[in-house]
């Protein structure tokens, strides 16, 4: 998997290991502090100097998380959406009166947030809250990179919704159940991960369909490399990168395949400034992969559980990872 012999470049010695005490479902950096989102009730904040501390956020399971530079937003089975700021202050943004599960969440430009309860999607920019009904439960939510526009994936397609407009959401159709959804950073393409082991995409200018298949299982992690040149994905025993440099995106092209391994890539996280992808595998291994030449650096040795959370800080100097068994760490990349 790496260069032969024992001269494997490694960052293992530069890792600060943590035991979060519970499954890690997401991780984000606010400044230099890593925010580990746990499967239940709380976040674990790990500042660069000082002991980690728990911040209570939910009364139950945490089902979704998203972040911008100011806050980490979480949604739970307690029917709440909670924002935790850089200082560790948790504020409840939304409370569902019937305590229904809120299990999809997105954070947009200018601090907008969106969340869903089954088929109902809510969006809130400044103060005003809007909602719309989907034909089936939301599989994923994503804001467009510019403007107050939301994509909601569901069965048989995606709804594109301008929450401030009166018009009904525009529908992009493709047969099957669509889960995670993401806009390309230039806003020209929209991609979904499907229940089948495949991605689907649309070129928004003309609605042209793109099918990206060949995965082992359904894709549960997608990320854009700096400038949106590649879409990095898990779901296979390799890192799969789809090219988005040209105006046709990956249409008629084959993906770049790097970092083959005996276990599947569970999660990917792209370096914010360079064409490097961190890949977390199902056995706990974390590799850093340079796209240009496929060079690999060992960031974490295999553990006992899949990697379930992975994030870079804004500079690309640190990586935080978390696993299903609560083992986590912060790696100083330099």
């Amino acid at each position, binding site marked *: 998997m790496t260069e032969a012999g024992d001269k494997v470049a490694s960052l293992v010695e530069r890792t600060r290991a943590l035991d979060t005490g519970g499954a890690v479902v997401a991780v984000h950096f606010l400044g230099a502090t890593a925010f580990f989102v746990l*499967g239940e009730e709380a976040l674990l904040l790990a500042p660069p100097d000082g002991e980690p501390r728990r911040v209570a956020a939910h009364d139950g399971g945490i089902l979704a998380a998203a972040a911008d530079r100011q806050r980490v937003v979480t949604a739970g*089975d307690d029917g709440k959406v909670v924002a935790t700021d850089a200082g560790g202050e948790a504020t409840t943004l939304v409370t569902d009166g019937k305590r229904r599960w809120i299990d999809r969440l997105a954070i947009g430009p200018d601090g907008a947030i969106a969340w869903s309860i089954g*088929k109902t999607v809510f969006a809130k920019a400044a103060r005003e809250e809007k909602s719309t009904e989907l034909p089936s*439960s939301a599989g994923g939510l994503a804001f467009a990179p510019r403007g107050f526009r939301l994509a909601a994936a569901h069965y048989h397609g995606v709804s594109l919704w301008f929450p401030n407009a009166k018009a009904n959401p525009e529908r992009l159709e493709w*047969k*099957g159940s669509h889960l995670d959804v993401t806009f390309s950073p230039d806003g020209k393409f929209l991609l979904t991960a*499907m229940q089948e082991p495949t991605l689907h995409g649309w070129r928004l200018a003309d609605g042209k369909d793109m099918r990206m298949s060949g995965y082992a299982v359904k894709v549960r992690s997608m990320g854009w490399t700096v400038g949106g040149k590649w879409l990095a994905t898990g779901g296979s025993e390799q890192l799969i990168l789809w090219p988005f440099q040209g105006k046709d995106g990956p249409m008629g092209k084959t993906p770049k395949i790097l970092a083959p391994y005996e276990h599947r890539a569970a999660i990917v996280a792209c370096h914010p400034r360079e064409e490097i992808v961190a890949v977390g595998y199902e056995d706990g291994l974390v590799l850093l992969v340079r796209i240009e030449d496929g060079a690999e650096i060992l960031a974490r040795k295999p553990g006992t559980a899949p990697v379930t959370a992975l994030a870079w800080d804004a500079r690309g100097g640190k990586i935080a990872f978390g696993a299903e068994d609560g083992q986590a760490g912060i790696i100083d990349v330099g």
Partner: protein
Amino acid sequence: MSDKIPVTVLTGYLGAGKTTLLNRILSEPHGKKYAVIVNEFGEIGIDNDLVVGADEEVFEMNNGCICCTVRGDLIRIIDGLMRRKGKFDAIIIETTGLADPAPVAQTFFVDDAVGKKTKLDAVVTVADAKWLKERLKDAPEAKNQIAFADVILVNKADLVEPEELGEVERRIRGINPYAKVHKTERCRVPLLEVLGRNAFDLDRILTIEPEFLNGGHDDHHDHHGHEHAHAHDHDHGLKHYHDEEMQSLSLSSEAPLDPDKFFPWVQGLVAEDGPNILRTKGILSFKDDPQRFVFQGVHMILDGDHQRPWGADEKRESRIVFIGRNLDADKIRKGFESCHA
């Protein structure tokens, strides 16, 4: 892996007593904690910490098979529940009276994430002793639920005469001779008969015999076994009910099978007739293979593996069972015979 959370699916036509059974499971002093997935959240009183409402979203898979459907809502809910792993020992899914159990069952075999964390334990169907016969005539859902079941509770047994109860049971046997049947009042049944059944566990497929042959009819065991189409009721003098639409078909062979013939045949069969074949089970003896091969299937999804070596005294007989709608017995039998090595 043994740390997978077992999942029990409760089905049954409207009013048969699913909620009674569910409340019985939750209230008995077993020391276990359950996460419960119900339909129509909040309409019925269920006293449990972890109750989730499901909206029964059935999704077709784009894999060229119209019968391959999953419950999208269950995939999301189970993913969410697993965040709270450690807070419960098992999951119970209560479906609506009109629900088809197949998409629920298929979810556990089709979705990789669900299959890794949980395992389907059994489909338990509650039937109304008084009304089942009527429902079998006018409600295809009720027939599906009987055909699909691993365990059937003939509930409200106290409300019908013994003869009528016997007839209800024979009707059930005419459709599904392999399920374990219990006659109950207010779903009163030892919970071990309902939970922890491992009905989809390949390691638990020990024998495939119609249930009524396993209890008190030992005289039929020895000479039962050559190929015969339907699992007839051997109670002498009693009527045998044959459902016009839904049947079971049991085939066996003492001649070893050729795996290179058998697998293409069975895969072709379920690919073509999958919508009509609800459940399949098999124990197979392959030529020059010291191991028993076991498999089970739901519509076109088959799951099989080598189980253990055949015992020295064990009769090396292959047996395969189908439960389905309008099965073409001659075609299936000929196909099976063509798999001899």
